């Protein structure tokens, strides 16, 4: 599997208003090809709106979203998104969900099978989505995003609805696939630990603006128990205006998690 170069992402003063309410205000953001950027923030801060703008699902009121896949390369078709809900078509088998939008021939079928095997669901291709667990559904959604060499992967709290064990497993899987493929990734999450564990750079969003940006220069794979890791988590939480380092990261993220899952 050849590593495809990631898409360069550039947001220039992007704003979005719905009626008179401002959702995003002059967001300036850049992701280098192959970079993994995490966007964190409290619920309602505009994280998901930002991702939807990048995906082209919504249009900005002002400003521009630029995608650059290199000279002469189309970028739009290589943007993939994974949502918090798996959004699988219940009436199509796993394999057909993975191959959604791809031509139905042997080459693409093989690509879908390969993606399915990569997320650890080899042999489940004939199953209906209805029999899968939450984690398995999310794996299928991830496999669907991997087919057709994505250049930019947008992850909208993809692990938000999973239990803690499954989430850890999925984080590891995501990181490994990203290291293999090197597509540009924007991960929106309310889980600061997750952001620090996976991202090259964490962008803190507050009230529709980029409040601050933090480079995470820890070596991979990251040791979540190391003092430097904990320090980064505490730093991000502090910048988000949450509790300071006195509270353990798990406790500090807890309220945010409950809030977003209710949304």
């Amino acid at each position, binding site marked *: 599997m050849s590593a495809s170069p990631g898409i360069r992402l550039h947001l220039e003063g992007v704003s979005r208003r719905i009626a008179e309410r401002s959702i995003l205000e002059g967001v300036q953001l850049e992701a280098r090809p192959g970079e993994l950027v995490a966007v964190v923030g409290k619920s309602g801060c505009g994280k998901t709106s930002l991702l939807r703008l990048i*995906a082209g*699902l919504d249009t900005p009121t002002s400003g521009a979203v630029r995608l650059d896949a290199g000279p002469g390369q189309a970028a739009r*078709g290589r*943007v*993939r*998104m994974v*949502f918090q*809900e798996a*959004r699988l*078509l*219940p*009436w*199509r*088998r796993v394999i057909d969900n993975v191959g*959604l*939008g791809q031509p139905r021939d042997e080459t693409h079928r093989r690509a879908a099978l390969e993606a399915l095997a990569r997320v650890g669901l080899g042999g489940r291709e004939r199953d*209906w*989505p*209805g*029999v899968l667990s939450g984690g398995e559904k999310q794996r299928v959604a991830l496999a*669907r995003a991997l087919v057709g060499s994505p250049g930019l992967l947008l992850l909208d709290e993809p692990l938000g609805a999973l239990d803690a064990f499954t989430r850890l497993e999925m984080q590891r899987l995501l990181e490994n696939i990203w290291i293999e493929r090197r597509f540009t990734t924007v991960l929106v999450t309310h889980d600061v630990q997750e952001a620090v564990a996976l991202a090259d750079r964490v962008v803190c969003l507050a009230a529709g603006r980029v409040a601050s940006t933090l480079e995470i220069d820890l070596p991979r794979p990251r040791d979540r128990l190391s003092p430097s890791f904990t320090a980064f988590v505490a730093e991000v939480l502090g910048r988000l205006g949450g509790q300071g380092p006195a509270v353990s990261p798990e406790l500090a993220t807890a309220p945010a998690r409950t809030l977003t899952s209710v949304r």
Partner: protein
Amino acid sequence: MGRGATREQMTVAILPWILPVGLLVAWQLLADRPPAGHSLIPAPSEIVTAGVRLIRSGELAHHAWVSLQRALLGLLIGGSLGLFLGLVNGYWPLAERVLDSSVQMIRNVPHLALIPLVILWFGLGEGSKILLVALGVLFPIYVNTLHGVRSIDPGLLEMGRLHGLGPGALFRQVIFPGALPSILVGLRFALGVMWLSLIVAETIATDSGIGYLAMNAREFMQTDVVILSVLIYALLGKGADTAARLVERHFIAWDPRYLRSPEPTARS
């Protein structure tokens, strides 16, 4: 279910039949009393005899076939129209603004009340009967199709577009299969209305079909044939419902309710 059935299973299988079979036996015993000739309550054996006679003469097959043709043709016409309107109005808000009020107004007129008008306009031929059936089945299919399209998760549509599905592919892969369970519910409702409309249409003015058979028998006081006709309607209705269920099982095999048993056995 099979050869390996235990006593308990046999008992369970027999239970629903005790009452109807008992009634039949009682009926036969009581009806045997009155003097010979036509009775108002013929014994089951007389109905069977009448049935055998009509099957031998080929009349039964002829009339049943005519009725079935009318029913299916009406279903096809009314059903397609209802399906089309439901899909268009469900997917395209402008079409709904334009069409839905009118459809709802027509829907609220009992279609059997239109019989005099239909006869005036279309005469006593096949057209008027098929039209009545079509009018009857249109609305259950329309309403349920509309509901089915509406209840599709917008997230799935969004995801489909994100994966490059055009309008045609989106319809084939997301909208239609998503609405199908609801459409099939509409179909089962429509089958009920289909027979009802046909029965009424056939009793009013016709020279063939099960309804005619019954009306004709009434004139000659052949109560056995009248009851036989009612039974034929029941059988046809049951057959249509079973067919609809099989279709449902086949097309909604993905539904978690059907997924419990990997190879669902069709029950009637």
